[in-house]
Every structure is written in C-alpha cells, then in structure tokens.
C-alpha cells in the first residue's frame, strides 16, 4: 500500500490493561504522532502515553477573570457612572452589592472557558476523520480499545510498526487510509 495515502496503523485491544501496557511500550519506542482510543478515560493512560497536564485550566481561569472584571465594571458603569440614581440612600457603587452578579459571571465565563477551551485544544468539532470511516473502529464507543500510530510520525514504517504492535499484544491490526 502506498504510504502517502495511509493515515496510520490501527491496532485493536480487548482489555484496558492490554492497551495501557501497549501505550507504555509505544511511548518508550519514541513515537510522537500516535494516540489511544478508548470507550471511557482509562485511569493512568495519560502517564502511560507520557502526556502532560491538560491546559484547559488556563482557559477557565481566563474566563473567570474576564467574568469577574466584566461584572464589577459593568455594574460600576451602569449604576455609578453612566446614570447614577440614588436608591434607598445606598452608595452609587459598592463592591458588596456588585459581588453576587460578578460572582455569577465569573462562573458563567469560566464555564464557557472550560468547555470551549476543551473543544479548542481537541480541535473539535471535526466531523470528518479517517478513523470514523473505518467500520471496525466504530467499536471504540462500544467495548474495544485502539492504538493508532499515524503515518505522519517520523518513526513510522508500515512493516516495523506493525511488528511492534504485534509484539505489544494486538490481535487485529490494519492500515487505515486517509
């Protein structure tokens, strides 16, 4: 098969322990463009793949800061700057009465930050993916575990990579086209 139109090699595993150990071996073999696909997050897989801590937290933090600042500035602008009105003899602006809405906006913008940050980091939505065209791969949402080494990886070799995946215990290996 032509290497140019191969997306990568897909190796299927039956248990979470098998895929975890396979991932450790592939990580140690020095691959870079590869991934593990599981029906649920497997505990310890981030470490087995050598992934670093997710950066979603920064998006949520940024959202929270923006939310709180927006709330405080908005209420100051509306009630103390643009159209000050005395209500019940209370001050035009106080951080105390501005706090509850600002608190809610912190949470609101933080939540948007974490959801959209997650989608951005994962480059989702992505409605076309070579793997999603593979019939057998559809079992990934059912009960199977897959390890995929992309042809774009510098260490990728159709024969040697296949041998490695056989060695780590996969019983079903196939090449998926682009």
């Amino acid at each position, binding site marked *: 098969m032509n290497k140019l139109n191969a997306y990568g090699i897909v190796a299927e595993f*039956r248990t979470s322990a098998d895929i975890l150990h396979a991932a450790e071996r592939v990580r140690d073999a020095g691959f870079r463009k590869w991934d593990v696909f599981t029906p649920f997050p497997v505990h310890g897989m981030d470490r087995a793949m050598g992934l670093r801590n997710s950066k979603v937290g920064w998006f*949520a933090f940024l959202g929270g800061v923006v939310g709180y600042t927006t709330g405080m500035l908005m209420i100051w602008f509306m009630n103390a700057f643009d159209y000050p009105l005395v209500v019940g003899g209370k001050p035009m602006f106080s951080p105390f009465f501005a706090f509850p809405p600002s608190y809610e906006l912190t949470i609101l913008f933080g939540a948007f930050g974490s959801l959209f940050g997650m989608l951005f980091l994962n480059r989702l939505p992505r409605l076309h993916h070579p793997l999603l065209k593979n019939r057998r791969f559809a079992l990934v*949402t059912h009960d199977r575990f897959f390890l995929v080494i992309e042809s774009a990886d510098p260490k990728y070799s159709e024969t040697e990579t296949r041998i490695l995946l056989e060695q780590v215990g996969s019983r079903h290996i196939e090449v998926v086209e682009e």
Partner: protein
Amino acid sequence: MGTHGTSLAIPEPPAELNRAPLVGNNRSLGWISNRVCSLTEGRAPIWWWILLIPSLALLGMLLFMLGYQISTGVGVWGNMHPVMWGWDIINFVWWIGIGHAGTLISAILFLLRQRWRTAVNRAAEAMTIFAVMCAGIYPALHVGRVWYDWWLFPIPNSNSIWPQFRSPLMWDVFAVSTYFTVSVLFWYMGLIPDLAVMRDRARTKLKQFAYGLFALGWTGSNRHWSNYEKAYLILAGLSTPLVLSVHSIVSLDFAVSQVPGWHTTIFPPYFVAGAIFSGFGMVLTLLIPLRSIFKLEDIITKRHIDVMCKVTLATGSIVGYAYGMEFFIAWYSGSPYERYAFINRALGPYWWGYWTMIVCNVVVPQLFWIKAFRHNLVVVFIISILVNIGMWFERFVIIVISLHRDFLPSNWGYYSPSWVDICTYLGTFGLFFTLFLLFIRYLPMIAISEVKGVTPQADPHHPLGGAKVKDMALHE
C-alpha cells in the same frame, strides 16, 4: 472476560472496603451500551405515548394560561393585597429547588469522588434543566407586563436608565440565568461521548447525521479524554459554588426584606438544604419507575436508591433543624412581630399548611433511618412524593403566611389561588414531563461512558480489566 491464563490469587480486601459493585451482575462494557441505547431504539413503547399525550395536553393548557394571563393581566391570579407573591413565586422557588439535586449529583458528588453518581447523573441533570425552565416562566410572567422583561437585562431602557444592582432581584436574574446556562453546558459536555455511542450505533441516515453532528466528531482519543476530564473537573468545580449560590440568592430575595418571617440570616443555607432535599425527592420519583420499566436494575441498583434515601434523610433533617432554629430565634430575638409571625404559622389560619410541611419534610423522611424502608421501593416512592408536597408547602408557608398578616391589622387578608394559578401550575408539569419524556426517548438517559468507567473491566489493575498476576504484584 479477562485474557488471563493462569489462576489468580487476589488478596481479599478488608471487609469494610468490600462494597457491592456499582454495576450489578458483572455486566460487560458492551452490555451497558446495548442496554442504555436500546431504550431509544425501535418503536416507542405504548406507555410512552400514554404519558406523552396527557403531558402535551397539559403543556397546551400552560400555553393557554400564559396567553390568558398576558392578554388580561396579573389580576387573573389570586395575588391580592397584602399577599402580592402567591403561587407564582411559590412555584418558581419550588421548581428551581428541584433542579438543585441534579447539580449536586453531577458536580458536588463528582468532586467528592462518589462513583455511584454515574448511574443517575444524566437523568438528574436533565431534570435540573427542565425544572429550571419551568421555574423561569414565573418570574418572567409575574412582572405583569411581560413585554418589559428586557428591563431585567443589562440594557438601558427607553429613558436610558440601567437596571439597579442594589436589589437582590437583579442578582437573582444573574444567578438563575447562569445556573441554567452552566447546567446546559455541563449536561451537553457529559453527553458528547455518549452521543458518539449513539452515532456509531445509528442505523438510519437521519440519526447518523443528528447524533454525529452533536457528537462533534468525538473519537474517544485519549489526548481528547485528557482535556475532557480536566474540563469536566473544572465545570464540576465551578458548578459547586454556583449551585450553592443560586438558592442562596433566591433566599436573599426574601431575607433582604423587612418582613417578619423573611428577615432571617439562616435563609441561605436553609434554602440550599431544602432545595437539595426536594431535588432528591424528585430524582427518586422519576427514577424508581423508570428503573423498573426500563429494566435498569443492574445500573441503578438498590444501593443507589439506598444512598439517595440517606441524602434525603440528611437534608430533611437539616431542614427540620432550620425550622426549629427559626422558632428559637423568633423567641430569642424578643421582637413581637417575629414571635407573632411564627406562632401564627403553627396556629393561625394557615395552620394546615404548616403542619403538612412538618409532617412531610421532617417526620416522614425519618423513616429512612430504617434499612427496610430504604429498600422498599414502594415506600421510597411514596415518601419521595411526600417530600415534594412538603417542600411545596414550605414555600407556601414562607411566602403566604408571612405576607397575609401585615404590620397593621387593617391590612390583613386571606389568600386563595385562582383557577388560573392552579391550571398554570399543572401546566408546568406538562412542560416538564413532555421534555423529560422526549429526553428519555431520544438521548441516553444513563451516562454510558461514565458508567463504563466505574466497572471493574475499566480498571487496568483489576483482573476483569485484563491485569495479570505479575502486574497485580507490581502494584501491591
């Protein structure tokens, strides 16, 4: 199920750690997908139509009542001087309180690592969203002139005046709308991997397209799961202070005023506990029948029901403590108005409302101390309904009894709801059940990938997850 060849010598954990499994009968990963997705596949069962049709009829009645109220005015309700907040605000607080259990299950129990939550969180979160939708109708409508609702938003009105944020009613707008939005985000994010399950099982083009579109191209990649789990954790961390703030702010609508019976500092925690209490009542009311009809006994096990009964008991006891403390403070404050307000609750013209509340909220849930009651589904179901009735009466007691005796006896009155109040309230059940029935028919009502994640097969260090003896020894 595992691929181990040799026999396993697994050391038995100490008895106190040996808990019943979360998924009964050692069901496989595939069984979970098949069981949950099959509920949405094939033709809709007859009972679904039998429930949907009256729900739609009630929803139609709701729309008619809202149209009648908008075209005629708030005078069609029973609200009358001195009781200017009647069933509208009672039902608003009641519905929004019900929502709180969903967020407690999805967020707080997630942070507390309560793994049993996975079986019930999806349905409970759906309940939250639909309950908040029912709640949202009331504040929008009770302003009387709904076409001025936009004055609540931070937009200058026609005289360039902005909303003024010194009022807790404005805080409430932000709290409730944030609560709704974040609940929807959290629910949707939990649904993404399960929508991918539905997409991969779909047989018709329409289903493949619809589920595929909303699954956003989810592949189950671990690089994605890594970000996903972090985002889920953060959303849980954000929803926890959110859910505690929402009912606190709702309670401030009352507590910031000067009315005896409302002007109390105990309100925020007392309202939050009551909200979670009523929400668990509703979760049990919904899930006990569904569990039997859908044959989900292996996913929502007796242990799940048992744990939820214990939460109901705990929050019900907190609520009971708050009732007692309110009376103590009314006596201890030395304020004659405060004392009168509370004696009037128990012995005044609405004594029946007060005692219904006490029986349903404080007395009946105490039966959950006894294991036999927690394991009798009929008893649990009946108590769960009584909890919801009791919590409705709690809001009735707080709102109507506090208002019907004004400071001057010449302002005293007696409040009764009108037929429009009653029909609007029944109509919100139509909205709630229509949405809930559509949810259980078209979306996975159990969080499939989360339930898979708490099975022993998911654990790479468990023999059912494929762990070999040497790995086990390694992790000793």
